[in-house]
């Protein structure tokens, strides 16, 4: 089952001008964009403030100027809007999914089939897209459904974020108005005259009279929204991306054949990249099947790369995730993200060459996910759980932690409460009970006092932890702490926790 995301940008022309920086903000006064239809000047877009004053697209500019005296009017630029929308779609493609297309005039459509797990699920993926757009100052609503038609309708006529779970397109569409179906305005008006109000009304009646009265467009759009007829998304492919494409006379399906074709595609692509002096950071392989379904495969690279053997290996690792169905007839390979890659000297006679682990990192990252391969970098924080940070495996790591105090080899994900018997204020416990077993403390060292980071959280202004290293009678060593300084209750609860195990 396909999953499609539709992004609607209702204020796109205004947001675009504002992002370009040459237009002052909405606070200075209402702003409209004026365009020309036949020989009338009409509003094509209005900012939020203008809309609140009753102005909207379609209204003649002269009327608007009569209604609002200090109205600012700028010339609309539909061609510029479309070009900017294509750039936005490209940005979405580089970050979220391989198949993205513009849905003019104010939308983008994304084929998210099989890509949501890379972003932590469908809801998280939508949140990520919406969050990035909102942070850039773009008003957007977003929806995810089984078909382009359904997602398009939900994005424009439901809430800000809508997810229609697989197989529920019919129920989700039923209450929406007829305008949600992407029909020409004349048809919508005609249907309204006949008494139809929602998409559900249309689904309930026989089709033949509808087709005879309004032509095939109504049932075609309805079928597309319900997934009864296909609507392929033609992915955006800007001319400056390195792309190679192969079409086959006979559909292919065998693993070995796919692998061989991947090898040829990679060879072409690497030649193109080499002539441009670039290396690929992200590769998208799209296999178009005979039933016009697309099977996208995306691989990421830790550093720019154009070594055919390596790229082929990474793509061939993903062949099991391709479902060839009745056969694949076209394969395209695109370097979605490319970065400059200049030849450089790897070794000198004086220094031996350091082994290159980027290939290994790529293989592992494409197997277990890019977030699961990392290095740990020191962070300047005394609080143990904050003193480490995961960073990308190829980033430079500064020198380690200050080596004053021993640190455990295992740190529990969160401190576990333990029972103890200890003298206040600063004695180590006589015994501790952890996970149901009791350990008598033979030797102990401490306390090592760690103060809360008041500059991070208000609640830590007076917080204190007293850490002890204790060794039980069998020689096992634990890292335990008491919340609070042992005297003043405002510094903590005086409960004991086990935080780590020493080797």
């Amino acid at each position, binding site marked *: 089952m396909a999953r499609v995301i539709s992004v609607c940008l209702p204020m796109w022309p205004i947001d675009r001008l504002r992002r370009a920086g040459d237009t002052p903000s909405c606070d200075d006064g209402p702003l409209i964009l004026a365009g020309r239809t036949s020989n009338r000047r009409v509003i094509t877009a209005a900012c939020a403030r203008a809309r609140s004053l009753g102005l909207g697209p379609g209204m003649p500019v002269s009327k608007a100027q009569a209604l609002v005296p200090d109205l600012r009017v700028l010339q609309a630029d539909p061609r510029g809007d479309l070009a900017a929308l294509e750039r936005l779609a490209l940005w979405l493609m580089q970050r979220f999914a391989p198949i993205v297309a513009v849905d003019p005039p104010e939308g983008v459509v994304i084929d998210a089939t099989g890509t949501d797990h890379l972003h932590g699920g469908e809801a998280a993926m939508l949140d990520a897209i919406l969050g990035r757009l909102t942070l850039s100052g773009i008003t957007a609503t977003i929806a995810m459904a089984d078909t382009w038609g359904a997602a398009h309708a939900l994005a424009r006529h439901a809430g800000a974020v809508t997810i229609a779970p697989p197989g529920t397109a019919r129920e989700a569409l039923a209450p929406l108005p007829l305008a949600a179906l992407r029909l020409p305005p004349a048809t919508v008006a005609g249907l309204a005259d006949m008494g139809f109000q929602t998409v559900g009304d249309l689904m309930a009646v026989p089709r033949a009279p509808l087709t005879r009265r309004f032509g095939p467009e109504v049932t075609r759009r309805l079928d597309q929204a319900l997934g009864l007829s296909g609507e392929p998304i033609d992915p955006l492919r800007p001319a400056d991306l390195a792309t190679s494409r192969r079409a086959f006379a006979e559909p292919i399906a065998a693993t070995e054949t796919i692998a061989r074709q991947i090898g040829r595609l990679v060879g072409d692509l690497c030649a193109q990249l080499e002539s441009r002096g670039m290396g690929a950071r992200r590769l998208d392989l799209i296999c178009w099947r005979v039933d016009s379904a697309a099977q996208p495969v995306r691989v990421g690279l830790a550093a720019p790369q154009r070594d055919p053997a390596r790229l082929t290996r990474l793509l061939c690792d993903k062949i099991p995730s391709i479902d060839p169905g009745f056969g694949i007839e076209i394969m395209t390979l695109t370097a979605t993200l490319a970065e400059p890659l200049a030849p450089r000297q790897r070794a000198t006679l004086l220094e031996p060459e350091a082994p290159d682990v980027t290939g290994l990192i790529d293989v592992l990252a494409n197997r277990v996910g890019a977030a699961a391969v990392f290095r740990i970098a020191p962070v300047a924080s005394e609080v143990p759980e904050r003193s480490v940070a995961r960073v990308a495996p190829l980033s430079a790591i500064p*020198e380690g932690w200050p080596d004053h105090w021993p640190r455990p080899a295992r740190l529990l994900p969160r401190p576990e409460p333990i029972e103890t018997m200890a003298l206040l204020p600063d004695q180590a416990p006589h015994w501790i009970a952890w996970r149901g077993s009791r350990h008598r403390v033979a030797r102990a060292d401490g306390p090592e006092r760690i103060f809360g980071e008041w500059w991070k959280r208000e609640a830590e202004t007076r917080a204190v932890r007293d850490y002890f290293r204790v060794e039980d009678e069998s020689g096992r060593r634990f890292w335990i702490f008491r919340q609070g300084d042992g005297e003043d209750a405002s510094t903590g609860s005086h409960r004991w926790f086990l935080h780590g195990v*020493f*080797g």
Partner: protein
Amino acid sequence: MPASAATLTALRARIADLSGDAQARAVLPFGVADLDRRLPQGGLALGCLHEVAGGAGGAVDGAAAACFAAGIAARLPGQVLWCVTRADLFAPGLAQAGLPPGRVIHVEAGDEASVLACMEEGLRHGGLSAVVAEVGRLSMTASRRLHLAAKGTGTTGIALRRWRAVAEAADFGQPTASMTRWQVSEIPSAALPVPGLGRARWRVALVRARAGEPFDLELEACDGTGHLGLPADVADRPAAAGRRYAFM
């Protein structure tokens, strides 16, 4: 007896031929004479699979075993891959066992099957000095694959055996293709003349070794460079630890 020594050498060469380990292996000495003396070829064989587990309670947290493995990896030059399923490794602790953060690439795989796959990938790559993987079950087939991968590139593999519960640690008795099998358990450290904790002390047991005898030793934990230490009271004892069994 030089004649029998020559015979022994010839026999050993023949056995090595039969078992496919014909080429002389590079070894990493521990730097503790008592330990190296009892290992075949005087050190830990490189380019092989080794297994390390914790004893008793350490079978679950594997803290001492992790430090032992970190100490071995620290004394090899180059990058180290560390594959885990449970993310509870504390990098400052590893750094204190001699393995600074700049030398370790961590992989957090979802399950043990992918941990083993990542370990094999790391061993086959050849650019790393050591690969450590925290696994519970290790089948004969999996360990043989890992051992062959390690042998092909000369990368040392360390399977850090770690189980969810102490009862599951009985799995450690199952045969695998690893070169050596170690068990590291914490024992009480020597009392200091003042309150406080001295250097931790381990009982390091070689449970199984190809072409070697099992033994166990009391040692002091890894220092900041990954070296183990021989406790002063053991070193000065007239009948050193290994010969104890002869009198018992």
